[in-house]
């Protein structure tokens, strides 16, 4: 008798999930020199079309979706293809119009050039 209400609420407790997508943060290297910041990210399976990079309010967001590539019954399953997403705060003085992204072999290279005001400058000493 006690189980009656439990039975009716079962569906509410565990709604059926149609498809759950997993997202991981891609592994990145971050480098800097006098002219630019260079961000290198491992995103295997990401294509040029699937990657989106957005710069907003001092944050750069890298995202990529990846298709499930099951081609038949699975014999070994050590990983599942996941989407990628990661957000970075970037310092002020990045020239947003010159940001360049390049994807090759599953590795994304994002170049964030510094604006001229941030670049190191040599000050000439005058003699008077």
């Amino acid at each position: 008798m006690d189980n009656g209400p439990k039975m009716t609420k079962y569906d509410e407790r565990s709604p059926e999930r149609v498809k759950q997508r997993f997202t991981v943060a891609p592994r990145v290297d971050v480098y800097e020199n006098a002219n630019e910041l260079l961000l290198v990210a491992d995103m295997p399976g990401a294509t040029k079309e699937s990657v989106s990079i957005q710069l907003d309010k001092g944050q750069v967001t890298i995202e990529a979706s990846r298709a499930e590539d099951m081609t038949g019954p699975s014999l070994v399953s050590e990983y599942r293809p996941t989407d990628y997403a990661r957000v970075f705060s970037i310092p002020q003085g990045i020239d947003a119009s010159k940001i360049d992204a390049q994807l090759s072999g599953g590795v994304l290279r994002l170049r964030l050039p510094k604006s001229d005001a941030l670049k190191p400058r040599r000050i000439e000493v005058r003699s008077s």
Partner: protein
Amino acid sequence: MLRQLGEFDRTFSMLDELRRRMDRMWEDWDADEPGFSTQLSSAQAWPRVNVFDTGSNLVLKADVPGVNEKDLHISINQGALSISGERKHDAPQGYAVHRLERGAVNFSRAFSLPIPVDADKTTATIKDGVLTITLAKAPEAQPRKIGVQTR
């Protein structure tokens, strides 16, 4: 009758819990990728692979971002498939390093194949950092259709 339904319900709750645990396991697995945890070390289980059976072929897929095709060696020897190679460190010259998560990797993995394959018809491609090895099943391992006759 009601008691039986209760049992039924509990069984499903258990299955549900199992599914949750499995999901969590996957998430942990994704978060803690072996092989990259230490920098510049040789990795035991890298790359991770998925293998599918497509009927006439076995298809092996592995994530190998940043590995050049010439640094990858694949061989089939007596029913064992081995993949070895290295991912070189690709740090640019003259840059200061803020963060290093992508190590260089030396890797070697071997798989015993469950069925005989035709080594001559095996192909391997790398696209977008994903290695796909297509192993053609040997003729005796190909699926065969048996016709049913009426009498």
